[in-house]
């Protein structure tokens, strides 16, 4: 067991930490509201090859794994980067798996944005996380996996977390990428990758929310001493830090499991998302709260984190409903055990 990052992974992390620190300061995050898309930052991501980090070299990527892109997602989350990332990275890998190299090349060149519709229901019924900015969305209708073209008329739906939400009612094109059992399997894997990458972004968000809260608690005085001296202020931040570090390890393990093809990978992916969503919310909530009335002011950065802790998680799923996905993957689906012949247990 080796819980350390390799030199290459550290390098990926440092490069993108520096990029987001420079290109996604709070002013840029605010300027990108309400749509939540910063085209200049997106241009930098394309130029650095971020979308292709986890795409095989043979088809134009860097040939790294999910862990490396999760490190990028974490740094993006730390700076609230106003760019679509989890779904486009997963979609790019899905295009590889389907052999759709033509569209993949356009993605890697930055000519189009391809996202993923993560629910297995008709496309028109979904609130698409990147709908306002994507050119194509990969969607699964229960049988076919298709690349759907952006409708002519797309309206951004202004929202809590400045997510580029939109609905796609009348798509302009549809190309079938895969169908049947293969499509189902590939789509399930792609959705699990979104789980992990959203978890990574939420962990990065939590880390910075804790930093902002700790910095404020060191400086701000109440009743003559810094508020960080009060345990009611300090201790929930300590709990948040522990959850953030634990959630980061859980996310990394989920990435490793997916990259290594471990049987526990799907269970770990759903655990990572549920835990990260909870961790990010509580970290941002306490950090905002300890700002007192100031935390409520639009000019404070912590409110940007608080709104996205909620918005980024709910854009993917209800974390509590995800618990049932975890249960399916750890205990087996409901009814799969069947009645027991004899047992020593007493149900109470």
């Amino acid at each position: 067991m080796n819980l350390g990052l390799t030199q290459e992974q550290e390098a990926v992390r440092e490069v993108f930490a520096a990029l987001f620190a420079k290109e996604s300061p709070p002013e840029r995050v605010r300027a990108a509201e309400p749509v939540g898309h910063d085209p200049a930052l997106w241009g930098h991501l394309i130029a650095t090859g971020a979308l292709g980090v986890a795409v095989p070299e043979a088809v134009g990527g860097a040939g790294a794994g999910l862990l490396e892109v999760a490190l990028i997602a974490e740094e993006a989350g730390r700076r609230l980067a106003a760019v679509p990332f989890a779904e486009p990275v997963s979609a790019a890998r899905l295009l590889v798996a389907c052999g759709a190299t033509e569209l993949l090349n356009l993605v890697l060149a930055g000519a189009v944005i391809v996202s993923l519709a993560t629910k297995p229901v008709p496309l028109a019924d979904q609130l698409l996380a990147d709908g306002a900015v994507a050119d194509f969305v990969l969607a699964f209708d229960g049988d076919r996996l298709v690349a759907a073209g952006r409708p002519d008329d797309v309206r951004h739906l202004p929202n809590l977390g400045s997510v580029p939400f939109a609905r796609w009612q009348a798509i302009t094109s549809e190309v079938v990428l895969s169908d049947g059992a293969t499509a189902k399997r590939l789509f399930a894997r792609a959705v699990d990758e979104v789980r992990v990458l959203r978890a990574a972004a939420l962990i990065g968000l939590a880390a910075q929310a804790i930093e902002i809260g700790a910095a404020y608690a060191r400086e701000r005085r109440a009743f003559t001493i810094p508020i960080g001296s009060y345990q009611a202020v300090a201790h929930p931040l300590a709990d948040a830090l522990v959850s953030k570090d634990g959630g980061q390890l859980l996310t990394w393990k989920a990435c490793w499991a997916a990259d290594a093809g471990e049987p526990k990978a799907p269970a770990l992916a759903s655990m990572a998302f549920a835990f990260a969503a909870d961790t990010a919310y509580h970290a941002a909530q306490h950090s905002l709260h300890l700002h007192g009335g100031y935390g409520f002011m639009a000019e404070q950065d912590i409110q940007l984190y608080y709104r996205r802790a909620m918005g980024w998680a709910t854009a993917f799923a209800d974390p509590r409903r995800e618990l049932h996905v975890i249960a399916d993957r750890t205990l087996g689906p409901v009814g799969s055990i069947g009645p027991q012949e004899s047992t020593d247990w007493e149900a109470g």
Partner: protein
Amino acid sequence: MDFTEASNVAEARILGQAFVREHVTAEMVRDELRTGDGVSRPLMEAMGALGWIAPTWPESEGGAGLDQFQASAIFNAIRAAGGPMVGPGTTMLAANAIRAMGSEELKQAILPAVAKGELLICLGYTEPEGGSDVFQCQTRSVRDGDQWVINGQKIFTTYAHMADFCFLLTRSEPDSKGPHGLTMVVVPMDTPGIEIQAVRTMGYERTNIVYYSDVRVDDLYRVGDAGKGLHVMRAALEAEQNVAPSSRTPRLSDAAQEWALAAPDGRGGVMADDPVVRERLALLAIDAEVSDLLGYRVAFIEQIGGKPGPHAALFGPETYVKWSKEMIDMIGPAATIDWTDPEAVAGGVFEYHFRSAVASTIYGGSSEVLRSLIAEQLLGLPRSRPKT
């Protein structure tokens, strides 16, 4: 990044399980439940024969030359079978401090016998007035020629009634306060003037109050410099907070899943089909996974020479307490029947966990102390306690 268990760790676990089959008898497990001593001398000697009391020490010192992960795998295999491991684990906290800070003569007198499983050392930190604030220490030691004369009282000295030595924190400078003027001594427990009083706990554990009246100890048994007990204590406390923890949350999760997958729901299915059960078991499975990961993180950071911080020592016990309560709610009143009755659910394991969990958020530093350490050392927040 590689979460694969190393093959030598899997081998260590298999060795541990084979050891369990030979040495951890049903009688030993029952005795432990009955007495709550936390110690089995035959178990310690059998472990010592393999170098497993001090598994990470080199073989030349009586250890087994294993890494932290291998050592944890062995200890956890023995714990999972119900073998009493409080004695060996706690003895090693003192032994490691002696190894780091003791004189050559003291090390020779104690460490080889510890490694063989022949010596049991209890911890004498806590006093009735002190609790988590160990530096309130009022037990006095006075130098008299080549000896120290000790007077005072310690509480929660687990297995003192069986121990060979006590790793004792004393105040050697009469007017000193707080962390200054302390001296650490390992006191032979057969010295005249030591009186032990049993304390029963709600957690099936026995602990003790120990009175020291004019107890005379040779200076040989001093650990580190006189008046510098703080340094010894700090090293020992950090070792305790950083111990690769063997959180019990994963064991609770395993037991709960086993129950849910077998217990009938009265409608032809099992309790694992019930959404209220599923949500709880999913949350518990996450906390179990994170507890384990934070434990591995300790072993990993120790191995590369860093300071892991008390994350695992906080998260493991906090989740253990929380879920020990939730599991009884979930299973119902039958879960409260204890291990002495054949009707107990899963041998009374849930009742046992509920009783036992609460102490885990206290010993080795209460959760509040650990949160303050994290706030101060990792978040740079001001100290919240008055300076002494």
